[in-house]
């Protein structure tokens, strides 16, 4: 059977990003059907309200072929799960070791009870809200590679939320008198967290899956999470006898870098110079920047009272917010969509 012997033994209908088809591309690409690709008949079943399985209008961005998207991390389920299992194991061991070494009971009491016990714990509700928003975003995304990136981000967020809860349980077990309580009351009623709650509720009510990714990964995380978690907690931890929380936060920052990178890739893909819709997409993205930047900044600035409670504070919230906003503006500039961008 000569013909068979000569047959290429791979998924040649997928255009590889690099020279050879990657494992990631092979298992991900075209697992989502599409009437404009191989499924010419369209959708066999509509909802009672008349909607089809996927809707081109599910995002205001336009692209002729969403299947071109590639997550720069190249993660597929096997390696995503491996990565997160490793991160969770590292957290579990660090916390266990810190507990045995007595480090957990050496935290500065204000740091422990207020910054970790309340502020950091309240953050888990925000992460849970993001889990909800991304779970729905993955449902609607217009290609498999995008849907998978969004789905992994949903799981990132529930991982962050749950690991905070487990960490505080360990603190309860190790530190005499420490109690994880009332964080939900703070989330629901404390003025410090209302802009943050408003922000995540707005995200949870946002229809556009690309907007959710853009808002969280290129605006909210670089501004609000950077100030409220990285700069406030991760940076100040060691000065309060806490090397443990920063290590947990570093795992979430690894996720953030990955999510920022794929969202940047989405921006590059939808604003590529040869794309007819590039200008439209750039305008859409600018409208998103205008919509989400004030909300993210308002959420961050509202943490000022928490900053003031940090016993050995080395920087003010204004300084930290300025740095975060500057870094975020540079990300947008580099993508050609910022105020000083060339787009």
């Amino acid at each position, binding site marked *: 059977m000569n013909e068979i012997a000569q047959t290429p033994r791979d998924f040649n209908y997928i255009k590889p990003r690099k020279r050879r088809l990657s494992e990631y591309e092979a298992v991900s690409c075209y697992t989502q059907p599409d009437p404009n690709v191989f499924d010419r008949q369209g959708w066999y079943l509509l909802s009672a309200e008349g909607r089809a399985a996927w809707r081109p209008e599910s995002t205001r961005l336009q692209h002729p072929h969403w299947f071109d998207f590639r997550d720069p991390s190249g993660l597929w389920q096997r390696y995503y799960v491996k990565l997160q299992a490793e991160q969770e194991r590292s957290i579990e061991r660090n916390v266990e070791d810190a507990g045995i070494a007595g480090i957990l009971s050496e935290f500065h009491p204000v740091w422990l009870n207020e910054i970790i016990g309340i502020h950091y714990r309240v953050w888990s509700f925000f992460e849970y809200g993001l889990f909800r928003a991304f*779970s729905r975003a993955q449902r609607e995304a217009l290609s498999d590679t995008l849907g998978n990136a969004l789905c992994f981000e949903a799981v990132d967020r529930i991982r962050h939320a749950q690991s905070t809860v487990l960490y505080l349980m360990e603190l309860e077990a190790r530190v005499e008198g420490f109690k994880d309580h009332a964080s939900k009351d703070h989330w629901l009623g404390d003025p410090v967290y209302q802009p943050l709650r408003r922000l995540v509720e707005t995200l949870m009510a946002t229809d556009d899956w690309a907007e959710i990714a853009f808002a969280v990964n290129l605006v909210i995380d670089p501004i609000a999470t950077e100030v409220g978690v990285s700069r406030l907690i991760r940076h100040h931890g060691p000065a309060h006898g806490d090397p443990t929380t920063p290590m947990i936060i570093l795992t979430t920052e690894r996720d953030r870098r990955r999510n920022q990178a794929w969202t940047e890739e989405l921006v590059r893909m939808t604003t590529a110079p040869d794309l007819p819709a590039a200008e439209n997409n750039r305008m859409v993205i600018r409208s998103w920047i205008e919509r989400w930047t004030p909300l993210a900044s308002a959420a961050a600035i509202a943490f000022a009272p928490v900053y003031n409670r940090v016993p050995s504070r080395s920087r003010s919230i204004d300084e930290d917010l300025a740095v975060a906003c500057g870094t975020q503006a540079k990300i947008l500039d580099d993508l050609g969509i910022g105020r000083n961008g060339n787009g």
Partner: protein
Amino acid sequence: MRNLTEAHNRVKDFDWEPSYVEKPNWYPTKYKIPAKTKDPFRHLVRDYLSMEEEKDNRQYGSMEDALARGQASSRAEPRWMEIMKAVLPILNFGEYAAMKSTGQLIETIANAELRQGYLAQMLDEVRHTHQEAYLARYFAKHAADPEGFAQGFKLRGTNLFNRAGRAAFEAFFMGDPIEGALNLQVVAETAYTNPIFVALTEIAASNGDQVTPSVFLSIQSDESRHMANGYSTLAAVVSNPDNLPALQLDFDRAFWRQHAFIDPFVAAVWDYFQTNRTTCYHEKWREWIDVDWIGSYIERLAPFGLKVPSGYAAARERVPWLGHTAAMVAFGAWPLQFWRFDPMTAKDMDWFERKYPGWHGYYGKFWDEYQRRCDPRNGELSLSLFANLPPLCRVCQMPCVFPRIDISTCRIKEFAGKRHAFCSASCELFFDQEPQRYLGYTSFYELFDGYDLADFIVENGLLRADGKTLIAQPWLNEERMWTIDDIRAARYEIRDPLRNQ
């Protein structure tokens, strides 16, 4: 030492009622779900990740190592390996649709216990999607004949049976999210994953395929959690009597939609693609569906007001014949497929008569005639055994030939100026209930009516790398394979059977 019960309670206390922004109702449901129910999923994300990582290591590790070195897939029975070309792309869409279904459920069902179960299932479904695509690619690399494995995800779009699979699995996420959960978790996963991911692996193994069992059994280890999700969802729904009328209708529909595709398809795969014969599908169906699913599960829900699906008695009656009829259509229409077929031998036919008494009287003649049409030198296509191509059901997309051609329950009717075929009274009923849900697509015959078969084959990419030999073949003879010239010479036009009726 972690207090697991307390940990579970705390991770379920994340939900709150948004007060700043009203949440749109993206996936309307007619069901009222209590805010608190039993917990189907007692794992933390941390535990889940480590459990799945270990399973992945075992499965991918064995595929990369011992199975690849032992050339396990190139040594398997070719008859069996051929049908995996059809199975994997269909199954893969089922998993993908399930991922979307769980996204909708997380969004819509305001119940912390159920959401915990759905969130793990969402990532499980990505896992299964990737496992099955990985397996298809693995076979493309290692199987004796890669053609069909290498292009399955591309070719499934216009394939007669893959289309019907997509129609069945779109019901996982098109419509009320609870209707999706009934289709996915209560019917497809609870009733059918045991026969597919467990029992079918016995056939694979008996026929020399050691790789598929590694993947399928690993998948099935997640399915038991999904069945628990289905049970908890159902328990939540029946706990409110107001839900019952809608539930029964959706359940009836879910059962038939899944049965209409899965039973004929899996029965044909099971019975017509094993060389070293073991059990027949009907035996397994009685065990897994009739005794286990209906007898030990669904019937026990009667005190809560849920009845056995209205179509069940008809399905039970049809099941012995569905696979044979589906196989007859699939083999007869082999040039439209993307895998090779191995004709039934006298030994196979004895087995059929033993397992399905009366089989020979209905199907024996077809197989005698089919054998004669395998050699292209005879110039006759097995398609000529049928008066015409079968009409395709407007609802389930299956050919309207069931349960047997001589007693087909096909019906045709006009709606909005067009004629539509239905495979059964149930599919017709569902159409009558909500016709607009089934009118959003271009039908197969609207696309291809009047095509010369050869043009269909070329246009749909059904040729091998040499550009002339068909991917599909009616037999496994590698000396004389059908080429596009043979097909052109046989002159066959694809005609919409409803066109001139």
